Each structure stands twice: as structure tokens, then as C-alpha cells.
């Protein structure tokens, strides 16, 4: 992730990017995956590591946070995931589960490169599933967005999942 600055964007740009974050959440809630892919830069890197519970005093490197990634995707792999979801053959999503994403605590700063912004946010994903099972998943996100042709595109997303154990039998959702 790029070094953090605390310089703000213009109010127009800030507003446009905030709206983009909310729109992104709605596109995913509405399963408009092709539209979601268009929000992603071609060089997007989308990842979610799972981190182990370790003692605060433990400074050892032997088992430090490793490549235990739930997601470690470029645009091609995200495209494969979308192909799967749109294949009409994902039995676990048929009948459809209802998913609602709540995006909050949005902080937007100018990144070091012109036309790029660092965005911190919190996402809460509600899944309503078979037999009215409810799952509530939360994560912090650190993003890099880039202005391309007048629109904001997601370049990097690091998802800090708040659960050391995935509390659902699958993560058939994007964060």
C-alpha cells in the first residue's frame, strides 16, 4: 500500500469517490458482476489474508503472516469467479441468497501519485441464507483508487477480515 498522506481531495472528487464506493456495494448486492468488473482497473490486486492469533510479544518470523490468502486475485481471476457466479450452475445461490453490504467509516486521502486516492473503509456483509440463516461478516478495507477517463477505478484492495476463523461454510461474496 502507498504511504499514507492526509491531504484531502477536492470536494467534488471526494463526493464522486464516496458515491462510487456506495455504488460498488449496490452493484454487488444486485449481483451486477459485469458492471462491478468495470469498476476495477486492469492491474487490480484484490486480496484478503487470514491472520493467526499470536502473542503480542511474539516477534518470531518463522510463522509470520504468510500467504494464507482467502483472496489473492488479479483481474483475470476475479473474472473467473464472476464467470462461475454467472454460469447459472451455482446451486448454493439458487434460490438466491440476499446479501446487503454496508460501507462506512470512509476516509479518503490523496495518494502520492496524482489522480490516485487512498481510501479506508469498513464493510459489513449481511447474508440471508437457506432456512433464514443469518451471517454477518465484517472487514476493514484499505484501497487505492485511480481516476481513469473521469471515473474512479479500484487498483488495490487489502481486506482485513475481522474473523480468525471464517464463520460461514463459504465466502461466495466479494468484499
Amino acid at each position, binding site marked *: 500500500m502507498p504511504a499514507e498522506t492526509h491531504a484531502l481531495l477536492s470536494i467534488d472528487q471526494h463526493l464522486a469517490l464516496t458515491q462510487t464506493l456506495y455504488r460498488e456495494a449496490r452493484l454487488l448486492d444486485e449481483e451486477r458482476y459485469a458492471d462491478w468488473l468495470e469498476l476495477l482497473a486492469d492491474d487490480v490486486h484484490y486480496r*484478503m*489474508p*487470514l491472520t*493467526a*492469533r*499470536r*502473542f503480542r510479544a*511474539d516477534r*518470531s518470523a*518463522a*510463522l*509470520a*503472516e*504468510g*500467504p*494464507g*490468502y*482467502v*483472496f*489473492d*486475485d488479479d483481474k483475470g*481471476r476475479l473474472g*473467473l*469467479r464472476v*464467470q*462461475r*457466479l454467472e*454460469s447459472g*450452475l*451455482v*446451486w*448454493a445461490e439458487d434460490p438466491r441468497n440476499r446479501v446487503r453490504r454496508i460501507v462506512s467509516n470512509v476516509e479518503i486521502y490523496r495518494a502520492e501519485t496524482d489522480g490516485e486516492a487512498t481510501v479506508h473503509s469498513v464493510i459489513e456483509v449481511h447474508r440471508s441464507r*437457506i*432456512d433464514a440463516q443469518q451471517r454477518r461478516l465484517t472487514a476493514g478495507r484499505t484501497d487505492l483508487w485511480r481516476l481513469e477517463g473521469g471515473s474512479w477505478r479500484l487498483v488495490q484492495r487489502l481486506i482485513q477480515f475481522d474473523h*480468525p*476463523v*471464517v*464463520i*460461514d*461454510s*463459504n*465466502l*461466495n461474496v466479494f468484499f
Partner: protein
Amino acid sequence: MRPHEQAQPPQDYFRYVNVDAGWVDRRIFWDEAIYERELEAIFARCWQFVAHDSQIPNAGDFVTTYLGEDGVIVSRHTDGKVYVYLNACPHRGNKICFADEGNARRFTCNYHGWAFSTAGELTGLPSEREAYDAGDIDKAAWGPRRARVETYKGMIFATFDPDAPGLEEYLGDYRWYLDAFLDNDEGGIEFLPGTIKSYANANWKFGVENFIGDAYHAWWTHDSGGRAMMGGPFPAYDPKDTYHASVNGHGWEFALEGFGDIAILGSQEVIDYYAALKPKIAARLGELRARLFGSLASAAMFPNMTFLPGIHTFRMWLPRGPRKLELRVWTVVPKNAPQSVKQAINIGCNMTFNPAGTLEMDDGENWEGNTRTNRGWVSRHEKLHYGCGKSRQIEHPELPGIVHEGQFNDANQRLFYQRWADLMNAKSWSDVPQRYAPRYAGRPTR
């Protein structure tokens, strides 16, 4: 009662499992009493995987895991040996170590500060002189209970049962198959850092039986993921040269086409790496095992360790009650492979087989459904059909164990439940019947 002093089993568990007729009673996936007996007769008895050498290379490195529902610390002591002992303080029973992994010089209980070495010895009590009189406590006798520890090619296993056969006998000729995964190259394997954990509201046995012999589900359950990863549906199933092999309840189902599983990783670099390695594997393990490794396959070691050898995913199914499991997943790579191959394997492995994997995501819902329907009293008293391929047992000149033809078969599952019932019935290890004629007893398999 010590773990090895078993109560008389209250019933004949073959009333729940009929191998010849090919059915299983659904209560074994739901009933609390059956689950309690599993903790005693299976998880307090059998050898179970606890860590790989590469996960705890240095003195003080540790991981915490479970044998059944018994939490254990697995740590490498200053003598270089690995010790496995109950993660429960012998004073008031609190959990000793709340971290998942790391490095520590000692473990100290949060409650009164009793301290334990990385070999599981009780080494210190705060205010010992003021609190305790001479004769109150023999520290040497009051460490947490230690398990037996044995290793096979870098894999560390443990059991709390002093009467269990040695690991080599427990594995039996399954070693012949395991070598294709663990020992197909001179460097052996290593576990990449990072444990991915998830819960499912499912009985642990559904996870294991899915890996021990259920190629059948892939064509239907994984159609969406298969099309995404391979650009089209799975090729039509061809039963020629496909098998189920079972040894002591462990199982491996496989084709022999050589690259089916490796291809699912979606990396040409990995395919090229193994294409170059295959002749060396053949020289090391023989032509048959060179074709076995990397083919479309899945495998499980009784009771709850599973892996997909060519996809390089390795997983443990930890029971959390009869209706919940914790799945732990790792990526395994050849130690001598170039870094870029290891990275490609890890990406392909996580892309397909973790809680967000394009193939694995379609599984959890099934196992939860298999379990949850048993809430119904009528449903629970129905039998499940496990009769596929009953008549296809063969003698094979090279394949050891009990071998059936056809990758679509319930044979390994039937024999898993036979072993399950054998152990549930047994008062001790000496009651557990030998169900096959070993070819490699006392001999190395490579």
C-alpha cells in the same frame, strides 16, 4: 479412567453400518451419544496429524490444534524434538495457550501463572514457597498429559492411546500411496505459512468421506467451478484405469491419467514443472505412482486428515460436536521447487480450494444440508445408500490394500465406515480386526 481404559461399548455399531448391503444409518451424523463415543473410541485412540516439520522448524516454534475436542500444544523443544501435550492447565484446567501459533520460551497459564516448558513439563509455580508445603506437589508428575508422537516423512502425528500400534502399522500399506504425495521428490514437501480456518454446521465425517472417495460429486456439484477454471465442463467420466484403494480405513481414489488435478491449478508453469519431474518420480517410485500423482484424485487418512494430492491442498476436519466442524486448510508444495512454482501452486490452490475457492465453495452447503435434515426424527431413522460399485473389488498386481475398480464408487466410504464401526466396537486396539493383507509390513514403501 485413563484414555486407554475403555468402557465396554454400549452396543454393536454395525447396526449403523452395513458394508455388504451398502448402507449407513443417518443417526451417526446427528446423535450426541454416538459422537461422545467417537471422541473416546476414535479421537482418543487414533494417530492424527498435528503439524508438519516445516511449520515448526525452530526451538520454541509451536502451533495449537486438537485431537478430537482435546486441545493440544505442539511445540519444538530445545532438544529439537516435538512434544504434544494437553492445552489445559493441571491446576484448575484453564487453557494454557490461547495463541494459534508462534514462538515461545515457555507457556504460562493466565489464571495463577503456572509455567510450562516447551516440552510440556511443569516448571514453575508463582509464590511456590509461600503457597505450598513440602509434599504438596510433585512437579514432575503434574505436567499436562503428553501424547505419543511419531513422524512419517516430515508429517508429525500424535495419539493419547499408549496401546495404539506404531504409526507405521497404523498407516500400513497406505504408506505406499502417501509416498506419491510426500516423497515424490528428494526434497519432500513443505507447508506454506498461513492456516485458513472455517466452520461449517456439518458432521465431520461428511468432510472426510467427500475426500476419501467421492469423485462422483465433482461432475455435478463443481460444474460451475470446473467450467470457470477449465473453460468447459469436466470431461466425460471414463471408468477405465480408475480405482478406489482402502487400507485400515484410509483411502485414495484416483485416475491414472497423470495431470487432471495439476491442471485444475490453472498454471502452465506448474504443469511444465511436473512434466519435467515425472520421469524422476517414475525412477523414484515406479511408473504407476508417477501416473498416480497429479491425476484427478482425492484422499483421506482415517480419521480426519484429507488432501488433494495434485491440487496440493491439505486439510484437517476437526470435530466441534456432532453438527459442527472446523476445517483447517494449508497449501503443500515440493520443497525443491522454484519460488515461482510454489507461488503459482499457492495461488491456484487458494483460488480453488478454500472457503472462497471456486470449487470448494460449492461443497459446504451440501454437507450442512446432509447434517441438518437429520433434525427430523423420521429422516434420522432412514438409511443412506452407499452401494455404488459393491461388486467391483479386484486383486491388482501392484496396488496394495483393498482395491475396487472405478473412480465413481462408494468402496472407500464403505470401508471408512467399516473401520469406524470396528473402532467404535473395540474395547482396546487388540479388538480391532485386520481387514487386509499387507504387502509392505516392516518394509519401506520407497
